[in-house]
């Protein structure tokens, strides 16, 4: 699956997107965030407070308990500041 990052998540991770292939047991957004944090120190720091991590799956906002099977595009970003 493709993961996109925005705002200071993108800046700190030094990438706007990456291709990842998480193991089969990673089945929800919450477990995907845990997995991403385990493999990258910066991600661990950025995602330390899980409450500020917003996620969209295939351009649909979801909560952390959403399943990720079959998803092609995951967007991970900090709280939005539009308007």
């Amino acid at each position: 699956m493709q993961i996109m990052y925005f705002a200071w998540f993108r800046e700190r991770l030094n990438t706007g997107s990456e291709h990842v292939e998480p193991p089969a047991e990673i089945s929800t957004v919450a477990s995907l965030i845990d997995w991403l944090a385990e493999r990258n120190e910066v991600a661990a720091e950025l995602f330390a407070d899980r409450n500020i991590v917003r996620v969209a799956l295939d351009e649909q906002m979801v909560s952390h308990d959403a399943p990720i099977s079959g998803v092609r595009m995951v967007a991970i970003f900090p709280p939005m500041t539009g308007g």
Partner: protein
Amino acid sequence: MWVRLQAEIFSPGAEIEAFVTHHKDAGAVASFYGSVRSTPEHPVRSLHLEHYPPLARKQIETFVKEATERFDLIDAAVIHRFGTLARGEPIVLAMTIAHHRQAALDGVSYIMDWLKTEAPFWKREQGPAGHTWIKAKRSDDDAAARWRPPTAK
């Protein structure tokens, strides 16, 4: 109903004028226009808005549609800019038309409150001392929460 995301500057006055053209007899028109703030205590040279285009459009269209249904609006529209904006430039314009004042005003508030917290835009200020990402405000979450339950998350 329409939503426009654009880098180009726009004229809020001209946009409102054009928006009401076909509904001048509706009775009530409301609008909110937000601009790049700079104060002596917190000087800002420019504001950069990063966004996630397809989701930003989808989210704002949802809020406009929800507001239209909930407040029985005759029409509603939003212009939101992205890219680098100079201080004082318009960022966003929300407009509604209804038969009554309260519906028009509530429609604008509803759209703006959700847009602040649930439309994927992120603001980065450029000041004399470098750039900083603007943090989301708890008060914006509270403002949006008063309209619950929404159909959009």
